[in-house]
């Protein structure tokens, strides 16, 4: 044990020390992890898609960067954002956490901004949960998890001082919905019925859809004249 400690590099020890100080600060400011900073991160330097990608061999060339712990917290969070319902799977069951990993690891400016927000945000979630519940976010009780989300998830009632975590949550929500609703399971849920080549003329609205809009238009006192 002693030997291990001695061989640890001084930088790591310092990091521990600062961590301990941070926890001290957290404890000192009551029930919130508001003392945390959201440090800028170094831009990822990796190969991108390029100007002329090979469509016969579609690949995501950059290495994935999220840790196992970050992926687990992400899975927990995306499933809280859009829980599975009946036959509709939860986002973690259709690859949404892996997509978020791909997204935050991409070597592009927009994704870099999201990476800073998301990696820091995931850390905030854990720190906040530790302060409030004594355990990381994924091990907190469901009610304790939603209590945290309730402070950051609604734009008109973000708890004071939590603007950054709220921005993080909004971005995660947007990425989760985008990633989920572009899967076949998401299509089934939302009712996207396209990408199905047909022959002959375009079929146009179904009788049900046409009858519906006719009713809507006429109820507004306007004329229904389909073309």
């Amino acid at each position, binding site marked *: 044990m002693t030997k291990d400690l001695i061989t640890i590099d001084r930088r790591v020890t310092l990091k521990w020390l600062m961590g301990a100080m941070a926890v001290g600060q957290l404890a000192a400011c009551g029930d919130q992890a508001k003392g945390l900073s959201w440090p800028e991160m170094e831009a990822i330097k990796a190969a991108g898609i390029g100007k002329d990608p090979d469509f016969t061999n579609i690949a995501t060339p950059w290495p994935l960067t999220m840790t196992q712990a970050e992926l687990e917290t992400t899975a927990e969070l995306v499933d809280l954002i859009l829980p599975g319902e009946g036959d509709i799977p939860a986002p973690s069951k259709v690859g949404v956490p892996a997509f978020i990993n791909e997204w935050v690891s*991409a070597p592009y400016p927009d994704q870099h901004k999201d990476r800073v927000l998301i990696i820091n945000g995931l850390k905030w979630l854990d720190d906040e949960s530790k302060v409030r519940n004594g355990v990381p976010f994924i091990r907190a009780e469901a009610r304790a998890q939603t209590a945290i989300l309730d402070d950051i998830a609604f734009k008109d009632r973000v708890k004071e001082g939590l603007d950054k975590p709220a921005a993080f949550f909004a971005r995660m929500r947007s990425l989760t*919905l985008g990633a989920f609703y572009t899967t076949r399971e998401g299509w089934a849920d939302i009712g996207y019925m396209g990408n199905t*080549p047909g022959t002959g003329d375009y079929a146009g609205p179904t009788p049900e859809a046409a009858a519906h809009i006719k009713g809507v238009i006429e109820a507004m006192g306007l004329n229904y004249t389909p073309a």
Partner: protein
Amino acid sequence: MTPEDPHDAVVVGSGAGGAMAAWMLTKAGASVLMLEAGRDYSPDESPMLNMAMDAPLRGVGTPDKEFGYYDATVDGGWSMPGEPYTMAEGSEFMWWRSRMLGGRTNHWARNSFRMGPYDFKPKTRDGLGYDWPVSYEDMAPWYDRTEKLVGVYGSNDGLENHPNSGPGVLQPPPKFRVWETFLKAGGDAINVPVVAARRAIITKKIDERSPCYWASGCGRGCSIGAAFQTTTSLIPWAKKTGKLTIATGAMVYEVLLDTSGKATGVRYIDKATGTHKEAKGRVVVLAASTGETARILLNSQVPGRSEGLANSSGQVGRNLMDTVGSNISAWFPQLEGRPRYNEDGAMGLHAYIPFWDYKRIQSGEVDTPRGYHVEIGGSFGDPGMGVGSGLDGYGSSLRADVKRRYGARIGFTQRGEMIPNANSFCSIDTNTKDKFGIPVLKFNFAWADHELKQVKHFQNAMKELIDKLGGTLVSEPADPAKAISKGGEIIHEVGTARMGADARDSVTNQFGKTWDVDNLYITDGSVFASKAHKNPTITIMALAMRSSDNIATRLRTGEL
């Protein structure tokens, strides 16, 4: 024949203007060498039925592929490594390049609105800008021939300054979708027309091309040939004559002249070997794009002159215009939860709003001199990464919100006319060269008050329409100066070698023949004398067809 052999015609560029010239000339029996700066390309490369889920980052735009992963544009975009362009202090301009066989026709929206009588004689009508040397009546038969050849769907509605096509020219348009019929009901009530759009997409089989199969975004390229691009039509047709030679990777930078001032060919860099080569022809046709054509002319050396080639008028590079663009979108509670069905259709406009307010412009009730049209979108599509925009909260209520709002938002996109102005032009930046050592273009660009007032007209008109239909704006539109697009952003840049009736103030005559060089022609958007609100490609092709007919005649009679 090989690129080293002298040809009847050397055509620079393979997009709308270049490919039309190549087809018309080879069809007339002339041998043509087509030089394309980019690589060989066919939309057979396009993964037509792949979806966002199959692409990195769900296919969103990146600095590598700005219009998304599947966009047909390869080796191009707003920025290209080693091939910069510069901007004057205080100017912002965006220049989209598609360095590939077929150029920008591989990814365009296929919107094909022909210009009308007012559009060809704008100065006569309101005293602003510049008249074309051709009238609508001159152009009408060429539009008919072009539309018939290309395959354009649409309807003849007999609207002011939106001319009908000839009998049997148009392909039948696809049915309106629910939200388009909804908009039409609102438009009818306030006298704003909502009519069938015109797009270069075939709905009935012609030649070897298949009709639209009602799926697959057109911007990724259409391997079945339904959505028009030169790589599935004009270029293969020209090849079939046995008269076309194509050299790709050929970056043209200069027109060659003999001692009498006649063009003898062009000089280019063969990108594969880095060597400088010459291509020889009896006639040279520039169709390299509005920016590149101006650049070639300005970079060409003419003994005893400093202003470049074909520029005795001083108009080369001047009169740079783009389409006026701005956007508004709104939620319509009446469309929430509407019954689902397949709304992919032709993957773009079935309906649009042509400009309607000409009478009030003439009477002075409207304070902007020129019009616009409105492109609209609101279909049930692949939800995409933006599906959560504007939503709040989490959990089952969030799911309900997503589903309720799907297909209930309509976007309105202004596409308007810009009047040429003295502050918008391109010139050679003598301090900057690209990786080939060719001096680059420098852009100056500024909108004028006319365009800003037009944005205001659009905003007010759309608010009235949205209000009539019980909609609510997603956000209040910004002040026109902020809401208006950047120069070049709509990728409709035209005008840098305008045609005119007088050699003193224009670069070419009505057939795209440069006034200064009898055997040098231009068939791309640079010859536009004005920038009507109508998307330019169909007009580029109609003009290129007419000009090429003139070239073919002159080749045949030995005049060239």
